[in-house]
């Protein structure tokens, strides 16, 4: 009987520890401050993907543990999931999508996610001047030409 109590106690304890929250840095880098504002002392700098343990939250700032030390990070820099890789949506024609969906049921959502409106509907919207997909394509091409290195150089003022 005692053993059963221990098991239940252990389960309850595990439930308790599960509520301790890990956070992951999303920003390319972020400062850990001694107080919840940017005028305070910078204790440390963390990088994208670093895992932090949330201690408390106050007015847009989160107190976190990083190793033995603890300090404040702005909430905008973190999320409770690890940072994701860049996601792109490749526009495929309808027949290609249907073929993929037929071959692999798990692809249905992916295929559909890339579809949105049908080509015929897009054409109609274009013709009546309610949408401009060609300009969207131009912008995506311009944006896609910019590499991470270009951004780093731009930020450095080069």
């Amino acid at each position, binding site marked *: 009987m005692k053993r059963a109590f221990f098991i239940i106690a252990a*389960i309850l304890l595990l439930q308790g520890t599960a509520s301790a929250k890990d956070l992951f840095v999303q*920003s390319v880098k972020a400062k850990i401050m001694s107080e919840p504002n940017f005028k305070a002392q910078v204790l440390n700098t963390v990088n994208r993907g670093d895992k932090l343990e949330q201690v408390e939250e106050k007015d847009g700032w989160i107190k976190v543990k990083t190793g033995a030390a603890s300090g404040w990070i702005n909430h*905008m820099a973190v999320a*409770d999931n690890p940072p994701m890789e860049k996601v792109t949506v490749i526009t495929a024609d309808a027949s290609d999508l249907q073929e993929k969906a037929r071959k692999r049921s798990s692809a249905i959502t992916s295929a*559909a996610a890339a579809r*949105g*409106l049908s080509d015929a509907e897009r054409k109609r919207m274009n013709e009546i001047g309610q949408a401009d997909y060609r300009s*969207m394509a131009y912008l995506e091409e311009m944006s896609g030409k910019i590499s991470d290195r270009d951004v780093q150089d731009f930020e450095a003022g080069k």
Partner: protein
Amino acid sequence: MMKKILLGSALAFLLTVPAAAENVARIRTHNLGQSINTEDIKAEITFGKEVGARILGKYPLYKNDALTRYANLVAKTLAQYSNRPELAFTVGILDTDMINGFSAPGGYIFITRGAIEAMNDESELAAVIGHEMIHICQRHIVKELNIHGTSDSPVMGFSHMIGGAGEAVNLTFVRAVDEATNILFERGYKKQDEIEADTLGVLLAANAGYDPTALVRYFKKIKSGQEKEIASITKLHPSFDERIQWISQSIEKDGLGGNGYKIGKERFNGVLARKD
């Protein structure tokens, strides 16, 4: 007796598990930005492309490679410090004298030529882009329309909306795009969303090294501008005075300000001089 206690404890535990799971799900649903998977992001981008195309259907694109590349570089610099590293972010310039900016889910930002011509430097451009970027990062439209990806939604499941087939499903998608454009052009965002976009946008720009007072400088300049040019921005946003007040309070609270921030006047003027 002991068995009853044990049974009771086990039952209580079993009951708390689904309740806790439900709470987590609710938190994840409302605390958007968390626990999102690739399919959700694809759905958001697909939706945003349609909204973006509508914006470009209303206002023609100002096709200027140098200015477009420059605005995209500023946006991508800011994006490095955002909570949405999965989005590529794309900026377009709209060919209108009107002063305003728009954003569509999935990373599409539009700034009017009139807005850029009223700016003094790169930090003001960064502040305006930062404002639009926060609408995207915080998923203001997605939240208002209750759009979700793989998770079920009480109103409309995004996976059903764009993953299903048939006219009814397609109509739902078109209606959601209509509703999003209605928010952008007619209704405006909720006041709380505008406060968030202003204050977090300034924070984002400051984290990227830009002068946190830039947006206040810009508002002070354009609020006394031509009525016709600022009609759209004043129709869709709270008053400039209110916005200046909450931005200033936020700068003070977060300890932003001081020296060492970028203004970028020379580079901004250099690109603008190339636009013609």
